[in-house]
């Protein structure tokens, strides 16, 4: 009886320890998967809608991605049809069909509206940032871990991110993006109406990302993700000289 009691006590203690200090990187890796990160091959469509002082802007895109590389092809409107963005690790290029050679891009270059290039591609926060669990906090009545992500190297888009990850669902529900000077410049909310099957498991997948400008509340960019497919990605797809797909 004493043995059972002490075993139960030990288990409770271990569970308590585990509950008290979940690993921030594990939380982040799981949240990344719901945004395409760390998965071997995926394809999805993105409808981007940006509203700012220039009016409303729209883009239709197809994204093919593996664990750390992405190929974004623009489908609409007609003026950008056929343009591509290739992200090979942190190397990025913009390709216009036929007209000129691929243009190398820095991660800081924005795609459109408040969306960065990384927002449409697969998310690999666990590779790009050092994560620290700050506390637990509820977002829209949902219990979340609040992670502080600091850039692991100089090549990433954001210097610091505060990221709320749902305790129950393991997905990122809100993010705040900060500049090097510590200024909040945009924040985003995420919805997960899609799901995919990976290694027999059902994984929720992002369906909508809404990005708000931190200062000008009228500036809003939404990205709607649809038609998620697990595909076989040929690594040559990201080689600018081969471009196999």
């Amino acid at each position: 009886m004493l043995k059972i009691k002490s075993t139960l006590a030990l288990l409770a203690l271990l569970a308590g320890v585990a509950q008290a200090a979940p690993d921030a990187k594990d939380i982040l890796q799981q949240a990344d998967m719901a945004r395409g990160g760390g998965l071997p091959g995926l394809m999805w469509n993105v409808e981007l809608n940006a509203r700012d002082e220039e009016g409303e802007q729209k883009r239709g895109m197809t994204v093919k991605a593996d664990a750390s590389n992405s190929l974004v092809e623009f489908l609409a409107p007609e003026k950008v049809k056929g343009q591509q963005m290739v992200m090979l690790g942190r190397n990025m290029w913009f390709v216009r069909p036929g007209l000129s050679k691929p243009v190398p891009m820095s991660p800081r270059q924005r795609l459109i509206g408040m969306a960065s290039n990384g927002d449409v591609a697969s998310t690999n926060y666990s590779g790009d940032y050092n994560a620290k669990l700050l506390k637990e906090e509820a977002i829209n009545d949902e219990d979340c871990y609040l992670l502080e992500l600091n850039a692991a190297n100089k090549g990433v888009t954001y210097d610091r991110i505060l990221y709320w990850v749902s305790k129950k669902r393991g997905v990122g529900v809100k993010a705040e993006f900060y500049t090097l000077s510590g200024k909040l410049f945009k924040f985003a909310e995420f919805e997960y109406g899609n799901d995919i099957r990976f290694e027999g498991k059902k994984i929720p997948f992002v369906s909508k990302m809404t990005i708000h400008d931190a200062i000008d509340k009228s500036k809003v960019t939404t990205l709607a993700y649809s038609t998620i497919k697990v595909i076989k990605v040929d690594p040559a797809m990201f080689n600018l000289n081969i471009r196999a797909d």
Partner: protein
Amino acid sequence: MLRPDVSPIGSLGRGGNPCPPEPASIGLQAGLQANTHAPCSLAKCRSDFSPTTAPARYHCVGLKSGLRLVGLCLSSVLLAAPAHADDETPWTFNSRAQGLLSATHIERQDNSQLNPGNAIAHIPSERYDLELRPDLEWKRPGLSLALKPRFGLTHAPGSSDDDLWLNEGWLRWKPAQQWYLQAGREIWLWGPSMFWSPSNPFYLGTGKNLPQRELPGRDIARLSWMPTDNAALTLAGQFGNGHQREYEPPSRKLALLKLDLNNNEASGSLIASRREGELWRFGAYGQWTVSDALLLYGDGSYGQNANLTHVLPAANPLGWTVENNSQRSATVLIGGAYTFENGINLNLEALHYGDGRDDAQAANVGEMAQQLQAALASPLAPYAAASLGASITPQRLQQRQNYLAVQLMDPTRERYSWTVRYSYNLDDHSSELVPLGTYDLNDRLQLWGNLSLRHGRNNAEYSQLIRYSAMLGLTWFAW
């Protein structure tokens, strides 16, 4: 067929065939050189070009070579298709089409010694172009076929021209895991630089001064092997120049070996190539993402360009001779790009071009041009004209050796974009300022304009033929 690389001075100077060059070839040669610096020139727009006969010949050439390529691609599809017979994935078809309309005005250099009275380069003062560009692509896993036929109408004072050609058309096939085959006509550009790409043996320029103009595709077959995600080796051969709508110096067949390497923050290539009749040429380029805002890059080559000629004083009636280049030389470009917080992008590049003329060679060209002015009114006029034309042929990346270039670009706006490019010749202190802009009237119509403003002495590189040019155009994104 006209032979624009005829070098009458050379033959005369060396005591060879004393026949004068075909006058048309002189004009063509020189006229098209001007076009490499002018946004709008076209070989067939020369004022002495006959629109009634010659275009038909060009059509034949363009169509025949294009149809040959289409035939080659289609037969390759038939050969490759059985390998994918068990693959039930259907073919997908994608297409897009654009129409471009443009008008160009060129203000020639009045007192050019290399193009006196526009008698050598025949640069039109005005030009109007219409071009239709459908892109067709069929795909299935491991196999794709693309065809990009083009139709163009050009009008300049005294001449008109229409043309139908295949600018790109290729077949991509993955015959086995890690192996990739591509054959056909393609625009194969590489490297991170904005102004020059010396490691690329297929093209002299990057096409960035005139982003609306398509470069001509080259006829290339290549086989790539990608053993890992971070490396690929490509063996390629160029078997044709593609359809040359604008004059380019003829180039011989070329074999090339290219090794692509990349890691998470950097990428680059090593290239070895050999053109028929030339020595091996070695090239390399690379880029490094230093931070989220800063890129550093380089591009260079070492080799021989046998098409280059040097002007030398000689004991012949003209007083000058031309010698082919036998030297190997190095060309190095270093550059960087910085993206500001507001999204505006700045590129800085410095170039040392080993094949460019040094001070003595440039002085020879200047002296020759001065002395030949009198010969242009003598029986030696065809030789004098050919000599002047030869000195401005587009065989070189640039004419001199040392350059600085800056580009500022705002890609952040939805309805409009602007880019300013500035190139400065450190040797003769001439320069070119190129502002480019686009404005979207709606999702299907884009208005655009380019200026080229030249500054320098009348015998300096950027200002020797043209003072400025302006181009205004409209692009219709049909589907």
